[in-house]
């Protein structure tokens, strides 16, 4: 989980692409996934995701994310199949429409999650923020919020691990099978996590302010984010994806 949002340096076309284009491409894949109900289109999008992963030189990672999501997907699939009553009954309580909808939901989940994780593999978070400020004229404060949120994920996980360890040491059984007991354990986890987060927020705010956070504007960035041929290609592909999703029934 720790490596999931980690930037991996490289020089693939995806690395060189303008961060804004990458966001556009990601969003287009997501929008296309939600516009279509066609299983083949969804399947195509999934293959497209994986191909992007390969192009980014992160094939291993793309597949490991895929594997990680698989368990959740399976659970979702079974749930959907059991609860959708419409359509013709195939066997037991399973209907054809249930199967199709469940497959669509699961595919959609995979299609949407993959590029969101991949974009962070090929782009530094600070680049995303700076490009948003420069190109999209997003106020720096909002871009900063985004980067900090993403940057704190590993720290958050570490803190969580430490808290669980501390609570385990005093006899709280996180590995208990009892669901009610498990719910009761949420509290000793959440309270310290909340407090430490609030403390950290304060510290971060001070650190940012000390470095002239308020003086920062759109012109402050040193790095420029240009548009090139790869970006043009990506924009065209994005458009094609959405148009395809709308046109193919």
């Amino acid at each position, binding site marked *: 989980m720790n490596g999931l949002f980690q930037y991996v340096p490289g020089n693939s076309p995806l690395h060189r692409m303008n961060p804004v284009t990458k966001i556009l491409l990601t969003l287009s894949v997501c929008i296309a996934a939600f516009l279509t109900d066609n299983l083949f289109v969804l399947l195509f999008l999934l293959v497209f995701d994986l191909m992007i992963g390969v192009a980014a030189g992160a094939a291993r990672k793309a597949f490991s994310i895929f594997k990680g999501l698989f368990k959740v997907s399976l659970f979702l699939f079974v749930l959907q199949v059991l609860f959708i009553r419409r359509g013709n009954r195939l066997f037991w309580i399973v209907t054809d429409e249930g199967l199709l909808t469940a497959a669509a939901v699961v595919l959609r989940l995979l299609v949407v999650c993959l590029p969101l994780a991949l974009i962070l593999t090929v782009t530094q978070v600070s680049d995303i923020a700076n490009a948003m400020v420069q190109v999209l004229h997003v106020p720096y404060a909002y871009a900063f919020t985004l980067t900090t949120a993403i940057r704190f994920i590993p720290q958050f996980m570490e803190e969580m691990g*430490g808290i669980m360890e*501390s609570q385990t*040491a*005093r*006899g709280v059984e996180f590995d208990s099978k009892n669901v009610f007991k498990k719910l009761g354990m949420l509290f000793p986890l959440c*309270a*310290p996590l909340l*407090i*430490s987060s609030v403390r950290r927020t304060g510290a971060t705010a001070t650190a940012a302010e000390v470095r002239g956070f308020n003086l920062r504007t759109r012109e402050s960035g040193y790095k420029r984010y240009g548009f090139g041929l790869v970006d043009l290609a990506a924009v065209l592909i994005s458009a094609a994806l959405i148009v395809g999703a709308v046109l193919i029934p």
Partner: protein
Amino acid sequence: MICAEQVSYSYSGGGQTVSDLSFRIEKGEFVAILGENGAGKTTTVKLIDGLLRPTSGRMLVNGLDTAKTRVSERAKQVGFLFQNPDRQICKNTVREEIAFGLRAVWGKQEEEKIRARTDELLALFSFRGDEEPFSLSRGQRQQVALASTLAVKPAVLILDEPTTGLDYRECTRIMEFIKTLNETEGTTVVMVCHDMEVVLDYARRALVMAGGRLLADGPVHEIFRDTALMEKASLLPPQIVQIAGRLGGDYAHADDAETLSGLIAAAAERRRA
């Protein structure tokens, strides 16, 4: 009480963090684990507590294999005070906080016993029961954490850098509590500590670690006197031991003194004899 038999441990995705540790700690001992950052001290004490399970070898606490003991069972035996009390404190009042640890170990049926024990600890640490832990100072929060760790009367108490970030008075107060506990109740104490003066004052035996291995194991004074060993482990002995070593002669033999005047007096004593 604690018996490590060729214990090794590697974190997932890394090399061996501690290798081939073997030691015995008897009931009532006060042991310090020394070593530079990354030497594997924290890993070792977590292995003793059963928070980590040996990748190879066996760790026995009170005759029970930590790999086979349940969390609640183990928490009755071993108390663990972490460096950061804020990861532990999760209740709104000091009273609730102390009772929380007791409930986790004794079960909810023992409400009477829990209340009595909580009162005892509040008095012992002179806390007000209705105080909010998060508005206390860092040192006081560490004391709250210590109180709730001690509440279940563990036979073994593990301390991982318990005094880091505390001022001298807070540090002394916590260490005095632990010393009393060790002397009156016979609680076995295993302490990781970077403050060599504290080690000299309180611990009687030291285990020295470097690179995940046990370098030495012996009485604190002998360990500190061994300059080659201290250098190898990148440690600096306490001032008083350094001074005694520099002065040499009668002083070098009197370096178990805890203060400078004690050192001088002991050296004078030797010279007279």
